[in-house]
């Protein structure tokens, strides 16, 4: 391993050039590979929040599951406090989940449906903190439910998951992750089903955890405005690859990559007002093009078929990662030296 280039401390959790492929059936008897994540590199630091945004199906959940140790990378490495994470038979060492907790995207599938909320929350308290005392368990469960605004707590504790609304389940899932008191929290769209006011309360809660307890947080979301509210840095994914990253204000106000630009411009913005909606949506209908297949991704830059600025090199060669200073980088030929152009000039 090379020494870190700056004085920045070792990240709590890092993905180093991680790739994940899935084998699927493509037709009768034939198999194909879904290239869900390719060459992803990401650092999570104490007390910092990184927002992971991007296309639906671009590999965000897969990356979160890799970081959480639920998948073994096809290549590359996950490192916890600098030490590579080893997996045996698809499982991480016990204890890993004491440090790293994942909030699953689908709150409907991730709670044990046979048990009441109380039991779902007591499990991590017993497992990771060895709490056995009845009164202590009750106290902690009550505290957790209050933190996620599920009050009266004693009433919610006795409900079964199917008796909760979507947003209430999401908050139980958040409470369960908080029960562990992890060093790293990976939130996969953790508040997507909450209304704006409770959403705000959860964002403020996460913000407190990061400032007071030094939690490192990965926040996966489609809500760019909430990412801007909570996070420090933004990373954008498209078709299995990371295409842009940097401090939030710069990335959102002045995107480098054309896909990031499209993403920010498409965000619902109440400040824009209820303008002519047909126009707003018509603009989206045909011009945006189809999302790429990850079984057979486009050659060159994966965004080129939809990119208004695509030039020859974009169709044939994958753009390298270009650092543009101030912690910003992108993978786009608009910001890199075009090798075909230079070779023509030198000829």
């Amino acid at each position, binding site marked *: 391993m090379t020494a870190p280039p700056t004085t920045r401390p070792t990240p709590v959790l890092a993905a180093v050039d991680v790739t994940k492929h899935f084998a699927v059936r493509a037709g009768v008897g034939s198999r194909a590979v879904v290239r869900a994540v390719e060459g992803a590199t990401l650092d999570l630091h104490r007390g910092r929040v990184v927002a992971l945004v991007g296309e639906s199906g671009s590999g965000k959940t897969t990356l979160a599951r890799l970081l959480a140790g639920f998948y073994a990378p096809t290549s590359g490495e996950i490192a916890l406090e600098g030490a590579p994470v080893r997996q045996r038979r698809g499982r991480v060492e016990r204890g890993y989940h004491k440090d790293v907790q994942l909030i699953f995207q689908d709150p409907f599938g991730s709670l044990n449906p046979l048990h009441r909320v109380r039991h779902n929350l007591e499990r991590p308290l017993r497992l990771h903190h060895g709490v056995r005392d009845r009164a202590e368990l009750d106290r902690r469960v009550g505290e957790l439910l209050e933190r996620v605004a599920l009050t009266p707590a004693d009433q919610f504790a006795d409900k079964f998951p199917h008796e909760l609304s979507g947003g209430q389940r999401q*908050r139980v899932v958040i409470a369960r992750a908080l029960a562990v008191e992890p060093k790293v929290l990976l939130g996969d769209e953790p508040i997507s089903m909450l209304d704006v006011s409770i959403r705000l309360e959860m964002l403020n809660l996460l913000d407190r955890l990061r400032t007071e307890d030094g939690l490192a947080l990965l926040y996966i979301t489609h809500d760019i405005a909430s990412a801007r509210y909570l996070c420090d840095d933004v990373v954008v994914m498209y078709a299995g690859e990371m295409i842009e990253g940097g401090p939030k204000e710069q990335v959102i106000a002045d995107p480098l990559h054309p896909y990031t630009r499209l993403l920010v411009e498409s965000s619902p913005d109440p400040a824009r007002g209820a*303008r002519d909606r047909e126009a707003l949506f018509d*603009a989206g209908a045909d011009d945006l093009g189809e999302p790429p297949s990850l079984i057979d991704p486009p050659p060159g830059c994966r965004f080129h078929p939809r990119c208004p600025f695509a030039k020859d090199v974009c169709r044939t060669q994958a753009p390298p990662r270009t650092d543009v200073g101030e912690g910003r980088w992108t993978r786009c030929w608009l910001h890199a030296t075009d090798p075909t152009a230079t070779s023509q000039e030198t000829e």
Partner: protein
Amino acid sequence: MTPPAPHDDLLRVTGLTVDYVTDGDPVRACADVTFTLRRGEILGVAGESGSGKSTLVTALSRLQRPPAVTTAGSIEFRPRGGDAVDLVTASPRTLRSLRWTSVSIVLQSAMDALNPVMRLGAQFADALRTHDRTLSRQAAWDRAAELLTTVGISGDRVRSYPHELSGGMRQRAGIALALACGPDLVVMDEPTTAVDVVMQRMILAQVLCLRRELGFAVVFVTHDLSLLLELADRIAVMYAGRVVELGTAQELYEAPRHPYTRGLRDSFPPLRAPLRRLTGIPGSPPDLRRPPSGCPFHPRCAERFAGCDTHLPDLGPAGGDGHLVACRLYDAAPGRDRTVTLEGSAR
């Protein structure tokens, strides 16, 4: 006998009340909900997590399961070229004949709608072939692939199982399935929570475009008020199982009447304006087993006055074109039934 609905009303919901009957007090998740939906209209439903939105839409599409019980009210539905039916009292057989072809639903948990052990294509083929018995298996699968492309999933994924899709892809497949048989009414419960905003715009553009072509009406539930402002013709805001405000998207954004709606509007983190800490709506949502007396919002309301804790305001005119609000601040608005509300005017 109620008079026949005017020709362009597709749905007339009157006094709909739904309880969850478990041991202890019942949870009244829908209380006296009344509204009409015009043919081809998009009605947005917004509101706090746990305010009864999913309960309302499952009741509308008659997909509710025990312990949910519709204890009062009617849902008059007038399908094209058919007789009006009251969905509350209709027989299971009638309801089955309406499913997919007249009323279809996109559930909040996409996993519930898709069968986990069936390939996507097979599920689409099932729905398509109950609708059109002459359709061959192959033709149905081809049509399925076509429908998937309309929601941005490449046709080669028809052979996938739901777990092989990303969260957003599952949601999109659910939308395509709901539109498959050309229904009169499509009910969508948080259909795009896991979809990126670019894709969301694309899908909604498709939905709007198909609506122009096929003329179906949509009830669209989401916590994402900013999206509704751009998409919906009218918006209903729910609080504690009740509709507390109903009006056009524009009125609702520019001049929200109910203090709760105003709180919602002011809870959005901005996409571009300078960031400041937002506090949302203070207090927590009511316990639906023991809702507060009077106006259910009064414990959290900054504008409450004498009598709000004892008088339940009804949904009535609040000035503006058909704008309705349930709040005693508007007791003096023209068109109000003064007799019900006079006592409270101690303001």
